[in-house]
């Protein structure tokens, strides 16, 4: 019993982190069909900002989270205005928007990642925060991992609640369902789109900030997280917030149990195998819209 609990808990925590990373990307794609392939780079920025704040100014990383969110939200507004607005306006079809924003994403990836290399160098950086273990039901978990998991679940639930019960959420869902219809009833994309894009980036940044307490930080750390995010949101169903959480947790569980019962080397094979298997069986993901 203890073993199962330990494995499941481990898997859920890792899965929660996956879901956390994917949240922002899901929001952007679900609403605007923007496949922001530079998502991981903003996660990296959040990590670096927190590291700087903590090691240079001694600021508490948890207290710094709202700052990261605000800074990246603002950055998101700017980037949307400069890069993506024009695409939405001048594209002939939704497919064209997807294709062109994919390319812009690449450009942003080059830009942000290498700006980081230039600014901070390629060296690994790191710090530890809340790394002491907490004992729960006989198993031990590092505090920062629990924090990331807790935040992932809280944020996902908050997102679901927001989308379902608030006016803002209803506007977003309306836009997802029918862009023209939504505009006809007065929902202003000029306000909504930048805000959602900014929110997506803010979520990426906060994920990065939480991860910076656990893992080491390099300018290239973003890409693997972008990949994970893509897998998670595709697995869960593009645009579905519940799917994002479920997809992430599922992946984490598959990995934990897989590693234990087979071998860690098979972990990646299992993850991708499950992903491809699910997609072949349910082409629009687990929680298809």
């Amino acid at each position, binding site marked *: 019993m203890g073993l199962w609990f330990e494995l499941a808990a481990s898997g859920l925590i890792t899965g929660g982190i996956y879901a956390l990373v994917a949240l922002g990307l899901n929001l952007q794609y679900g609403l605007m069909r923007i496949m922001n392939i530079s998502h991981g780079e903003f996660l990296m920025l959040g990590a670096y900002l927190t590291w700087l704040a903590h090691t240079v100014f001694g600021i508490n990383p948890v207290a710094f989270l709202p700052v990261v969110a605000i800074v990246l939200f603002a950055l998101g507004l700017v980037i949307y205005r400069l890069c993506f607005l024009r695409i939405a306006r001048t594209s002939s079809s939704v497919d064209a928007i997807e294709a062109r924003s994919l390319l812009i994403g690449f450009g942003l990836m080059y830009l942000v990642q290498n700006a980081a*290399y230039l600014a901070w160098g390629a060296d690994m950086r790191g710090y530890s925060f809340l790394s002491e273990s907490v004992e729960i039901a006989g198993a031990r978990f590092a505090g920062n991992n629990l924090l990331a998991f807790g935040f992932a679940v809280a944020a996902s639930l908050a997102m679901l609640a927001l989308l379902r019960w608030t006016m803002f959420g209803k506007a977003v869902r309306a836009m997802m369902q029918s862009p023209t219809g939504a505009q006809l009833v007065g929902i202003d994309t000029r306000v909504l789109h930048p805000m959602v894009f900014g929110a997506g980036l803010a979520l990426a940044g906060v994920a990065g900030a939480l991860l910076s307490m656990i893992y080491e930080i390099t300018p*290239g750390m973003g890409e693997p997280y972008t990949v994970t995010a893509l897998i998670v949101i595709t697995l869960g169903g593009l645009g579905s917030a519940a799917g994002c959480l479920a997809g992430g947790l599922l992946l984490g569980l598959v990995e934990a149990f897989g590693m234990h019962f087979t071998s860690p080397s098979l972990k990646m094979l299992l993850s991708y195998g499950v992903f491809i298997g699910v997609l072949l069986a349910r082409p629009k993901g687990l929680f298809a819209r």
Partner: protein
Amino acid sequence: MHRNTVIKAIAAALFAAVPAPALAQDAPVRIGYAIARTGPWAAGAQVSQEPNYIMWAEQVNAAGGLSVKGKKRKVELVGFDDRSEAETVVRTYEKLMGSDKVDLILPPWGTGANFAVMPVVQKFGYPMIGPTATGRKLLSMKNPYFFAILQQPDLMMNALAEFLKARNTKTAAVIHVDELFGLEQFTALEAAFKEKGIQIVEKKSYPLGVKDLKPVLNDIKAKNPDAFVALSYPPDTFLLTAQAREIAFNPKAFYASVGTAFPVYRDKFGPVVEGVMGLGTLNPKSSPAAKAYFDAHKARHNKEPDRWASAHAWAALQVMEQAVAKAGLDRKALRDAIAGSEFDTVIGKVRFKNGENVATPGVVSQWQSGEFEVVWPPDRATAPAFFPKPNWK
């Protein structure tokens, strides 16, 4: 009057002609290289290798220049980013050796890049001393122009086995990264442990980039081995340290090969690293030369070098410097000088046999109070070992 003018003109011409050959002697020695400044190889390259190249060139020039068979010439580094891509490595060295025709070359970072550049090095005949390339596979290519100055897997693993044996270690759990490095180290370790009678109670491997190894560590903890050995790369080393501490896995010996020697390991984990062992060749206490090297690196780059590959990178530069002083820039003569002589460097004596440095032994180091002390072999040790390792803080 006519003759006077002519004589004056000739004298002036002669006078002008004399300094000209002296000016031609000041042509700098051009040293080319490609190294990872971006991409997955960059973290290692920028910690262990390129900072040494830059610092060396500056130091040499400050002292008047590189001695080429007695004559001093300034050094000019011609370095490019290889973007952690083998194809870019090959292309850049083709440019440096084939088109730019630089005088000397320095190696790129890592076994993969060194493999890629081997045929080019052989084709153009430029000797190269690699401080971040290991492996039997690499050396078995028997490239006469390539010299590996880093300790090879068997040396390192034998040292570890001797160290553990001397402390009556009976059992060990070993995990390794699914890369050539991990595999070769593991093969060497299996042989060394078998010879020393240390039983391996668990062996597992994992892919690079894994984000959670707790299931594996829990399994190993249950088996209660005397020693835990991870043949790992920096990201996994960091992960294992954090997670072993998380589950309070306290074996008598905790060893992780790569990454433990990086200053960021100590900076990130602080006092937690106390007692962790790993690959490391020297530290500032090893010798006055070592301390001078550390201080200079810190002053120039605002960061410490790592305690393993950095030192070997510096030593490789010293070897080249001494060989050029003796044999000049003729590449064949230079290669022979490197292959046939013994050199005094910051890591001690360096001597090559079949392209491999046989003079530097395998070393085990351990973090003690903020310094990565050398604890084995006894004649290189800077401090006695903590054994068993104190529990995670």
